[in-house]
């Protein structure tokens, strides 16, 4: 992607008329040598097409990378639907939905920025990129709240999974104040508060939905994994199965009121959203770099390849989230 760009900062020849998006606009015909044309390409359109093909292939590999995880998700879900049922209720659908909207909006602003680059509208480009970058920050910010809340509640992956009890919460001094039940989460109160009108009444124990939390008495309505008595939730290897023959006939959990192995859900949740988060961060880095270059005035209708390619990448990041959101938050 970045290869196509030579490092000089010479001003783009904005006088160049052709818009040349997609279907091989013949930029470099005749006059002069575009300073952004790399030595091994013959024409700007050859360079643009190469970059575009390369980016599409790269996006293909990214989809396959996530595809592996989606596959794993599907298989584990097929094997243990009860885990996924129990697990997904701990997620905050409102925050997820807000994040979806934020990301969709940023995708729109990105598309707008690409359009501005094609029409040599430098101010529009800068504004579009800035808004997209803000969208990225917004997404990561909300993700941060979600993560810290999960972590504070002990919904951590694998062997670190140790959910704290609602009962335990009620007992903590902080809980007396009504909302802001989760001690670790209340530092970031504003964001959850904004989402306070959250709809899912029964999934009460997600602590960020603070206000109603203190009001409803915890036990009855809560999902199985967190419900059982004081000894239940901490499911650690040793507790599950002694490993011998007697323990588990087919790797399946031993039914009952406690859903075992709910940590699997959070493991895959953190894997999927974590990997996606890393991609968002990478995308934000790319956009910041594009912003720097557009401020410098590198892009014009004659040369906007990096903006176009960065845009494609950002749309992919968005697209993956569009799949993640229903799979993790909504499907019951």
């Amino acid at each position: 992607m970045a290869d196509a760009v030579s490092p000089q900062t010479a001003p783009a020849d904005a006088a160049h008329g052709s818009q040349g998006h997609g279907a091989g606009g013949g930029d470099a015909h005749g006059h002069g040598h575009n300073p952004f044309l790399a030595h091994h390409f013959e024409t700007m359109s050859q360079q643009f097409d190469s970059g575009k093909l390369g980016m599409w292939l790269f996006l293909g590999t990214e989809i396959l990378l996530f595809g592996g995880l989606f596959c794993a998700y599907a298989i584990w879900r097929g094997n243990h639907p009860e885990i996924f049922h129990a697990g997904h209720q701990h997620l905050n659908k409102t925050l997820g939905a807000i994040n979806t909207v934020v990301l969709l909006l940023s995708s729109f602003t990105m598309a707008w920025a690409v359009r501005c680059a094609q029409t040599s509208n430098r101010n529009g480009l800068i504004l579009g990129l800035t808004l997209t970058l803000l969208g990225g920050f917004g997404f990561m910010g909300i993700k941060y709240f979600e993560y810290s809340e999960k972590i504070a509640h002990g919904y951590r992956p694998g062997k670190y999974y140790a959910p704290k009890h609602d009962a335990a919460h009620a007992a903590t001094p902080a809980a007396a104040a009504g909302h802001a039940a989760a001690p670790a989460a209340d530092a970031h109160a504003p964001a959850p508060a904004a989402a306070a009108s959250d709809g899912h009444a029964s999934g009460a124990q997600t602590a960020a939905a603070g206000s109603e939390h203190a009001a409803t008495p915890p036990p009855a309505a809560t999902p199985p994994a967190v419900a059982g008595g004081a000894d239940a939730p901490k499911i650690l290897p040793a507790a599950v199965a002694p490993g011998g023959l007697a323990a588990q006939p087919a790797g399946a959990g031993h039914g009952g009121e406690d859903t075992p192995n709910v940590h699997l859900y959070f493991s895959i949740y953190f894997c999927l959203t974590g990997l996606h988060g890393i991609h968002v961060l990478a995308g934000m880095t790319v956009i910041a770099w594009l912003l720097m270059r557009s401020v410098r005035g590198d892009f014009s209708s004659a040369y906007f390849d990096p903006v176009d390619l960065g845009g494609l990448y950002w749309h992919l990041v968005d697209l993956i989230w569009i799949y993640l959101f229903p799979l993790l938050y909504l499907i019951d």
Partner: protein
Amino acid sequence: MASISVPGAIAGQPARSKANYLNASSGFLSWAFTLDHKRIGVMYLVGIFTAFLLGGLFALLVRTELLTPGPTITTHDWYNRFFTLHGAIMVFIVIIPGIPAALGNFALPIMIGAKDVAFPRLNLASFYMWVIGTLFAISTLAFGAVDTGWTFYTPYSTKYAFNGMIPVVAGAFILGFSSIFTGLNFIVTIHKLRAPGMGWFGLPLFLWSLYATALVQILATPVLGITLLLLLVERTLGVGFFNPELGGDPVLFQHFFWFYSHPAVYIMILPAMGVMSELISVFSHKHIFGYKFIAFSSVAIALLGFLVWGHHMFVSGQSNLVGMIFSAITFTIAVPSAIKVFNWLATMYKGSISLNSPMLYALSFMWIFGIGGLTGLFLGTMATDVHLHDTYFVVAHFHYVMAGTIFVLFGGIHYWWPKMTGKMFNEPLARLSCLLLFVGFNVTFFTQFMMGSHGMPRRYYNYPAQFQMYHQISSAGSYIMGLGVILMVGYLLHSLARGRKAPDNPWGGATFEWRTSSPPPVENFHEQPVVDDLYDYEKLFWDEQAGGYVRREVPDGAARPAH
């Protein structure tokens, strides 16, 4: 850069600048930050060959340990680490990148008449990822070394093994991305940078195979990436994806792993088949036979290669139906492989066959891949696989296939060596080295078929004494191979220091790289070559003065058989 014109240097060749990609600039940094595909290719070659020597050393340690049942030179633990490191180094660090990244990088842009690959910086980044991945993988030695075998099967790799697991898996992950980016670069280069007038069926067959390889690289490697990532997460966070005690499924890892690793076998063998097509045609001085069948068979192998991974799991408890489907598809992949072999033979038929060292390697490949491919039939057949699975029969089979790739890698190194370095090597020693490798290889691995079918399982430190005779013959063969490799390193280094100056076209090849100087200039060509039939040897004539072949236009009257 390279435009200082120095008049006429080599007899019989047009006057040219003496500047080439090797001497255009000098100093460590000029190599470390080079964007020239040829220099990157050479750096890969040096790195990969060094890794090959290391992997070979581990192989010799394994073979030495197996001279006697029970302890010979080392302990259980170290033996297990040796074969793991041997496998991981040879597969991930040597064979997978071997031909594409080293020879492909050097030859691909020249063969399509381009100045470079489409993304030179990405190319350099791939190289450094290869270096970092390799360092990670080898650093496992410092952390107690990993002992899982190169397949990293769970739950052993997640519950037991050593702390060295993390660096080696991280290393394989990084190497995977190096491979993805190389493949991506090659696909775009072949699509977008072909010389004007060069159609898809005008491509040299090596590039068809590199293209097919690149497809597999970008489609399969991401899945390996995610699998290794899950393995790392499982190991560090104990998430239990593959741990039955925590609700996971250990066999699922095998599916993920082989979904990549079986196509990876074709990542290893396809480029070798491409080089074969070049070598057989050039050294038979005859037009390649059945171009389209060879080209399409590469793509067919690449695509079918995705659908056969389950044949690694006939005895792991998958259902009979699934096993049947995988077995059936496995047999279909035998067809395109056979097509290639028949076409190579037909190319030799009525040719004018020179037995230079690259050709000797190519003919060795016919023998070795012949056995490797045919023994695959025993393993694709479900009933016989039950008996042979995880025995030395399998070990011998995949060595016959993968070492076939190494033989072609060596053949390719010898073939392009004059072009890369501008120097000739000692041909008699090269033939001797090829002979030693060939003999040593067959002694080492043919015996392994026999002990395997008698039931000798793989990865055994200690073995029933009835197999000792086989093991000793096998080890003896490995030492012969060791000698061959040492000899090769010797004469190649000697060639660098005092080799005879190479002509532009020492073998009589018709592809573009033989139409530029040896070594080529920075931008590959002095003048853009004209696209014509790249397997037409009618225009090539031996020139005693140049010590190589030169192109001359054949007068219209001369016999030019029509296609």
